[in-house]
């Protein structure tokens, strides 16, 4: 099975062949490297930009103004912050011009912890991204969803941001991408660039099939009735593993992969909380003005009389960075033990 980096590459290949994507660009995105996470190797429209994040976002907007379909990469979301007013502008262009213009553009950027990336390669961006009206924000946790969400992003008429949990980029999926060869070694031989000289190398793309994950639709990953856990990105697989271990204790947790942060699938959350009466939101961005706080607020306001316990949020510590040492990273963002304990405690809570 493809890993998430390969899945994104396959989606971008599909998008440049079939969806009119004209440019996949950013720092080290084009040959020879094809992206620091290999996501853009062998793509025919991939090119290297100057080391200038404001230029990358600005040019993506300009390309979209000119009727192109750009996919721009910010190499790590830690470096997206100096583009924030351009992101705001991309999000408000349709509204500010009262519908005169729209910007079909995708910004992709790796996010989060998990590679011992220290202070400037571990940041999350979901809390900030969801403060940008006019954007659609997605964040996959599996290769197949990454493929399907990227295809939806490339079909959209509006700015879409794809947040890529970098801890999951190298994790192989459990489902085949439509058209992917069953043997993942065969896939690697076809689409992974060789080490060393790549000047003569060309990828051999599998015959991919259209597959889009609709933006705004969550995925019910595991059914249960004791509590609901809503997560996305790196922490989602932790929630699934925690649910599996709690099942052995007789606690059946329902796990929802939100996948889209904006717009998001409130109906999926509502239906699940209606059933379980308890909900834990899990993500790894810093916990103050965290997107999960919005979900807690809405749950409290709209589902209060269905609740059997306060809605809970497990998120990253509100500290200035994620330190390099293993002990520091573990203490800063939710780990498996933290998730398991939070779920166990919520399941045991009684009014």
């Amino acid at each position, binding site marked *: 099975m493809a890993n998430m980096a390969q899945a994104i590459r396959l989606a971008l290949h599909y998008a440049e062949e079939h969806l009119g994507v004209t440019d996949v660009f950013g720092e080290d995105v084009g040959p020879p490297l094809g992206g620091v996470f290999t996501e853009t190797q062998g793509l025919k429209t991939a090119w290297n930009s*100057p080391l200038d994040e404001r230029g990358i976002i600005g040019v993506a907007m*300009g390309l979209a103004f*000119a009727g192109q379909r750009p996919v721009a990469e910010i190499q790590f979301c830690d470096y997206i912050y100096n583009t924030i007013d351009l992101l705001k502008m991309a999000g408000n262009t*349709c509204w*500010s011009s009262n519908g*005169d213009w*729209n910007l079909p553009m995708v910004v992709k950027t790796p996010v989060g912890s998990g590679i011992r990336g220290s202070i400037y390669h571990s940041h999350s961006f979901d809390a900030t991204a969801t403060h940008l009206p006019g954007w659609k924000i997605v964040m996959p946790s599996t290769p197949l969803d990454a493929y399907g969400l990227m295809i939806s992003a490339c079909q959209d008429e509006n700015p879409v941001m794809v947040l890529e949990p970098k801890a999951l980029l190298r994790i192989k999926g459990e489902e085949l991408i439509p058209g992917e060869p069953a043997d993942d070694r065969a896939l690697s031989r076809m689409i992974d660039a060789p080490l060393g000289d790549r000047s003569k190398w060309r990828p051999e793309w599998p015959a991919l099939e259209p597959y889009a994950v609709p933006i705004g639709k969550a995925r019910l990953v595991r059914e249960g009735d004791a509590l609901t856990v809503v997560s996305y990105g790196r922490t989602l697989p932790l929630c699934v593993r925690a649910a599996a271990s709690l099942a052995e204790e007789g606690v059946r947790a329902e796990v929802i992969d939100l996948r889209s942060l904006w717009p998001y699938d409130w109906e999926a959350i509502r239906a699940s909380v209606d059933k379980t009466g308890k909900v834990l939101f899990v993500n790894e961005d810093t916990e103050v003005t965290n997107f999960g706080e919005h979900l807690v607020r809405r749950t409290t306001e709209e589902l209060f009389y269905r609740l059997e316990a306060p809605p809970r949020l497990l998120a990253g510590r509100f500290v200035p960075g994620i330190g390099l040492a293993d002990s520091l990273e573990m203490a800063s963002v939710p780990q498996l033990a933290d998730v398991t304990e939070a779920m166990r405690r919520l399941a045991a809570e009684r009014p």
Partner: protein
Amino acid sequence: MSDRGSSRPRPQLVRSETGGLPLDRELLVRMHELMVKARILEERLIQMYKAGHGYFWIGGPGEEAFNVALGLLMRKGQGLDFDYLHGHYRQSATLLALGEEPIGALRQMKNTATDPYSGGRNFAGHFSKRIWNIVPITSPIEVQYAIAPGTALAQKRHGGEGITIVTGGDAGTAEGDFATCLVWSSRPGNELPILIVVTNNQWGISTPASTQQGCAHIADRGKAFGMRTAVVDGNDPVASYQVLREAMAYVRTERRPFLLEAGVSRLYGHSSASGANLVRDEVDCIADYEAFLEKRGVLTRAAMNEVRERWTKQIGDMARQVRDEPMPAPESIWRNIYKEPS
């Protein structure tokens, strides 16, 4: 093309070696009318602000000479074969020169539902017109310099003669986005068909440019990137037209960048926040141009007065029409967040 020797250059209008007119007589007359029309529009916008028919004014009195010439030379239309304009908020004269009706600016000033550029959402002078490749003008200074290379890149690939034009003020060139524009417009092997314009009024709100930037001319920064550059007296419509014609022809055919700095005036201050009162110690491009036209026998004083009176009446009538138009509906805040089905 002329370097500005002093800090407050006087227009140099007589350029013909034969003693004839420097530009076609009809063009000279047309430029005059558009400059006057733009000035009257801006003065009406200021009047609306002062009468309480708008919350804020910002605009372009003092940039008419350069901006009219720019608009007249643009290739107007939609798509890659036409010129893209990434403008700034002192650009009304360019829009009028392109053929825009002045009533739209009045509607935006009054923030009515009929405002064609933003539906009552944005300040005066924040134009947007997709069918003419006018991308939305925004308030942040200089962001347009980071965006413009994107349309130029698409036009480079497309070929043809469509170009990208980006304009901004001198103060904002201190922002990194101006450097972004220079870098992205001159990538080796991928030079872009972009005319980079800086209208230099020598002010950033209250701060004199001479106290903040050490370069002799902002245009000189282009030289380090191998760009052709020029400095022009932007208060001189004839010189502006001639320089723009040459620069735009170069960008159109050579598909390479050109950086043009135009010295202009700021005749009513930065915005209504500083009072929007007439500044008397800066060059008035219309007064100088009218003196030239009269002296050269192109237009009589009576004919020029007629132009002013005609547009004063017409734009006044438009302002009265706009006064009674409805505000946007409160629920309209939810419209056009995303592209809506057409």
